[in-house]
């Protein structure tokens, strides 16, 4: 099974090709190495999936970097059912995004740089999901963060883009700090960084607690929550969600790949991968579920009123990630991964359709200036419509099965599960509403843009629409591998993952399952109808509602003022401290003092030393002799 090594290393090779030869040799052909490499990875991933389906899994170290007692730093791969699923998701979406970008990024001056970053990202993400130890997970985690930063700020000449890149990086620092602490705690507790020994021993430590500032804290809960901090940052959950909407400054294919399908789901993957740890701590599980549920609703409400087409989808992503955490939090890890998998296709599709629209509109993102585009861009319209139906949960499409699975699992888990079920069901209504608001504003009604824009409207080239159609197939059919037994399916998806993620027993009856399913279909239909009513039949309603509930509207429009809050509480004080304390004191007194004072001190010392280091041999010889006498004296003293 050694061929699995090709999966991460093909994109790495492509990265080096584009890095070294990009500017001079490859230039406009930069897509070839990257795209072929990721296609190769996809093919190998399929082979790995087939192997895993036959029950062959693998856990081995490729090589050890540092071996120091218990502390081992190694590159190793764990290939099991969960990895196989993630490999397919990452490589397939990545491949389609690579192809799509040939059209979308055509003629960009940084073309080779774009593909180099994309390959590097793919490599990092694959290393992350294939890791067999915490440190490699952490390495991949930071590496995808770096690529995300580079790609958000890809058009670094644009101030807002480079600012957004920095914001993403800095906000993620907060989460990663906790994540890093968590990894250290794992090592201190278990004495190893490999997954399997940690999982094997976790059970024995379930009851241990440690004393932090007088508080008795359960050790596993502490570790799980610290690790979850990282997930909150990476997967943009409350309260660290603020970077994701801004990340839309990056090129749209990047949003589709990194900020919808793969990187942001790393948090969910991590929680699922570490499920033996999380499962041991009910408290941590409840936190995960509640953060997920609240985020799902919270982000969905913001999405209701935004006009920037990409930001609506970004908030929708945050909301859907919330669903995945909901599932993990109630112990239905397989359901979370199932949603991750279906979501990758329909959300990537939504983003790429938005990109196609922007391509046609000359970079316009404001939906209020669009309208009626379905006549000009039929392929984009149809694929986007299907993606929206899928995310809203139209029975039979991918999103329906996975979302339904989550809601049912939440409901049947009881306790906190019921609370998040309510949150999730309300969010489902909002999801359907904002998704169709987007479709109606963009593709229906009359065109509201400028004459010039109307003149340029066109369907995107084949190289962009073909990936849309392929993703569309995914958005329709991806869920068919997990049709619940209730609807006559086999639930193969969660069966397949059961060796890794366990098998939650549903305690609810068939009637209740029908109830949750029916309810979610109903609210989805309600949401779609409401959007139809608001934006096609009677466009005055939203305007009047906005007038009527002015405070609520501006609260949503301003995203609950979270950015402003952080600005006031975190950013400004930091800058204040930086300006007045660090620059004034540290830089002024300390650094200046050190930088100027050290040479001063060294200069003073040097003046003394240089009187010895004066090039005169006699002095050198005398110093040697003196050294000899001193050493002898020390030796004599230690002897007596």
């Amino acid at each position, binding site marked *: 099974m050694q061929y699995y090594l090709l999966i991460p290393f093909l994109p790495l090779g492509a990265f080096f090709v584009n890095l070294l030869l990009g500017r001079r040799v490859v230039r406009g052909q930069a897509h070839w190495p990257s795209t072929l490499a990721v296609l190769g990875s996809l093919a190998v991933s399929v082979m790995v999936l087939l192997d895993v389906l036959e029950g062959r899994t693998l856990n081995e170290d490729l090589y050890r970097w*540092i*071996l120091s007692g218990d502390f081992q730093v190694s590159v190793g791969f764990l290939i099991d059912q969960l990895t196989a699923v993630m490999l397919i998701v990452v490589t397939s979406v990545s491949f389609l995004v690579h192809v799509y970008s040939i059209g979308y990024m055509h003629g960009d001056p940084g073309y080779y740089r774009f593909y180099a970053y994309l390959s590097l990202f793919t490599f990092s993400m694959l290393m992350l999901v294939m890791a067999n130890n915490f440190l490699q997970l952490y390495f991949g985690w930071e590496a995808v963060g770096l690529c995300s930063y580079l790609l958000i700020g890809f058009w670094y000449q644009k101030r807002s883009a480079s600012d957004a890149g920095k914001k993403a990086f800095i906000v993620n620092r907060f989460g990663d700090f906790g994540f890093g602490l968590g990894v250290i705690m794992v090592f201190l507790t278990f004495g190893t960084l490999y997954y399997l020994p940690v999982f094997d021993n976790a059970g024995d430590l379930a009851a241990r607690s440690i004393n932090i500032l007088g508080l008795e804290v359960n050790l596993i809960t502490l570790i799980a929550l610290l690790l979850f901090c990282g997930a909150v940052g990476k997967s943009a959950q409350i309260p660290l969600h603020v970077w994701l909407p801004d990340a839309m400054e990056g090129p749209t294919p990047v949003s589709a790949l990194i900020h919808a399908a793969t990187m942001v789901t790393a948090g969910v993957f991590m929680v699922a991968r570490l499920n033996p740890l999380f499962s041991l701590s009910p408290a941590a599980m409840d936190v995960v579920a509640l953060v997920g549920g609240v985020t799902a609703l919270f982000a969905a409400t913001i999405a209701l009123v935004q006009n920037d087409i990409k930001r609506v989808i970004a908030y929708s992503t945050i909301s859907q990630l919330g669903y995945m955490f909901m599932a993990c939090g109630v112990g239905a890890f397989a359901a979370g991964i199932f949603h991750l998998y279906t979501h990758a296709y329909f959300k990537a599709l939504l983003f790429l359709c938005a990109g196609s629209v922007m391509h046609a509109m000359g970079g316009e993102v404001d939906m209020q200036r669009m309208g009626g585009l379905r006549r000009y861009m039929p392929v984009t319209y149809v694929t986007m419509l299907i993606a929206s139906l899928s995310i809203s949960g139209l029975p039979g499409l991918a999103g329906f099965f996975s979302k339904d699975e989550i809601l049912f699992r939440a409901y049947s888990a009881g306790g906190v599960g019921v609370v998040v079920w309510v949150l999730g069901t309300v969010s489902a209504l909002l999801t359907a509403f904002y998704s169709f608001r987007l479709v109606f504003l963009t593709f229906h009604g009359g065109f509201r843009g400028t004459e010039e824009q109307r003149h340029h409207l066109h369907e995107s080239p084949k190289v962009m629409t073909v990936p849309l159609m392929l993703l569309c197939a995914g958005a329709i059919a991806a869920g068919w591998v997990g049709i619940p037994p209730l609807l006559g399916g086999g639930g193969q998806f969660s069966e397949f993952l059961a060796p890794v993620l366990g098998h939650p027993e549903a305690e609810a009856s068939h009637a209740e399952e029908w109830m949750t399913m029916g309810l979610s279909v109903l609210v989805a239909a309600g949401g779609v109808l409401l959007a139809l009513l608001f934006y096609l039949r009677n466009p005055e309603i939203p305007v009047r509602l906005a007038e009527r509930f002015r405070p609520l509207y501006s609260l949503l429009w301003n995203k609950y003022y979270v950015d402003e809050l952080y600005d006031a509480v975190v950013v400004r004080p930091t800058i204040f401290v930086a300006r007045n304390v660090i620059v004034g004191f540290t830089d002024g007194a300390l650094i200046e003092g050190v930088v100027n004072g050290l040479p001063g001190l060294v200069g003073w010392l040097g003046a003394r030393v240089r009187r010895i280091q004066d090039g005169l041999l006699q002095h050198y010889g005398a*110093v*040697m002799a003196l050294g000899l006498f001193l050493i002898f004296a020390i030796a004599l003293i230690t002897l007596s």
Partner: protein
Amino acid sequence: MEINIQPLVPEIIMAVLALLLLLLELFVRRKETVGLLCIASVTVAAYYMPQSFGKAFGGMFISDGYSVFFKFLFFINLILTVLLSIRYIVIERVNHGEYYALMMLSTLGMMIMASAGDLIVLYLGLELMALSTYILAGFIRHDIRSNEAALKYFLLGAFSSAILLYGITMIYGRTGTTGIALIGAALAEGTVDPVLLLSVTALLVALGFKIALAPFHMWAPDAYEGAPTSVTAFMSVGPKAAGFAALGRVFLTGFGPLTGEWSVILIVLSVLTMAVGNILAIQQQNIKRMLAYSSVAHAGYAVIGVIAAGAEGLSSMMNYLFIYALMNIGAFAVVITLRSEGFQGESLHDYKGLSRTHPVAAAVMLVFMFSLTGIPPTAGFIGKFYIFKAAVAAGYAWLAVVAVVFSVISAFFYLRVVMYMYMHEPEGEPLTLSLSPAIGLALLITTVMVLIVGIYPSPFLAFARIAAG
């Protein structure tokens, strides 16, 4: 008397081929050929190395894993510096075949030092190595700086040789033998007395001089700065490593019973060396002088491996020297490429804006500077990591902390080079690099090896570990 010369075969080959080279020099017009023949000779000697294990001359000469590791290190040093020299000595107008023969003879001296089982053999090896190096340091006869460097190195070297001989006579008078293993056996029974301490001190000073431990380092900056740059690269690695080889063998085998006495002294010297090397390097504006102080500082790190003792300590020291050889010669290779007809290229300011004018050279230098600082994933990090680990394992955690602090200080002057290369605009005349296929090959080897050892160190670590026994 039965004489078994099998363990000596690589040395004999080196000696014979060096003499042949000296003769051949008369007939070969293109001296580059002599350089290439020198590399070929080394390869022949290296080929016979694996069959050389054993003892000869009643234990005076020992070919074991330890010495073979060091001999390979000397060979790498020789090959790389010959590659650096081929174009450089043409620029310096000293393109003579003796240069390569002397390098080979110096390397032969180092090999004898590494294999010495007797203090007399050790001393003669050291003299052979040192004498050849003195001449090489003064090889540019028309350059007053080169003359000065050679003279200083020679006189102080003679002084340290005298001290070494004093030490040897005293230990002979005290134990009645000059065999290192026999000394160890003799000391194991007896008590510690002042004569022993004086001879330990004398040997420590003499070998400390060769590896440039403070306060016996003072020749190094002057000699390194004045000597031809390729010779600086040669002598900042080879004689230092040979000194370490001798230090390890004499102090761990011969003076093993006195570990308690000398380790205290070595700790003091190690801290002093790191302090002097790193702090004075900050002040330097001449890159050769800066690298000289840096080489002093690195001796301070490597000696921690000897202090930690045991197989782990020794192997960490050997491993460190191997890595140090690669990165240091690499850095000197870049320094040499800046030297061209009528341009010294030794000032730090010459590196300003190098990334704009010569991005590849700048990137390569960046790798070496990172490695010298000890930033992962370069080899320098691995070297330091295992040194510090050995120190901690031997109960000298505080020494490891001190070493880390000095490593941080060292970042100041290594990264200043990087800053000049990447964050400053080029100044003055555009630089032309003196590149040749040979130096390109040397740069390629060192860069790749620094990265490979940094990323995949286990085989190298295992080699050092097996060699240390």
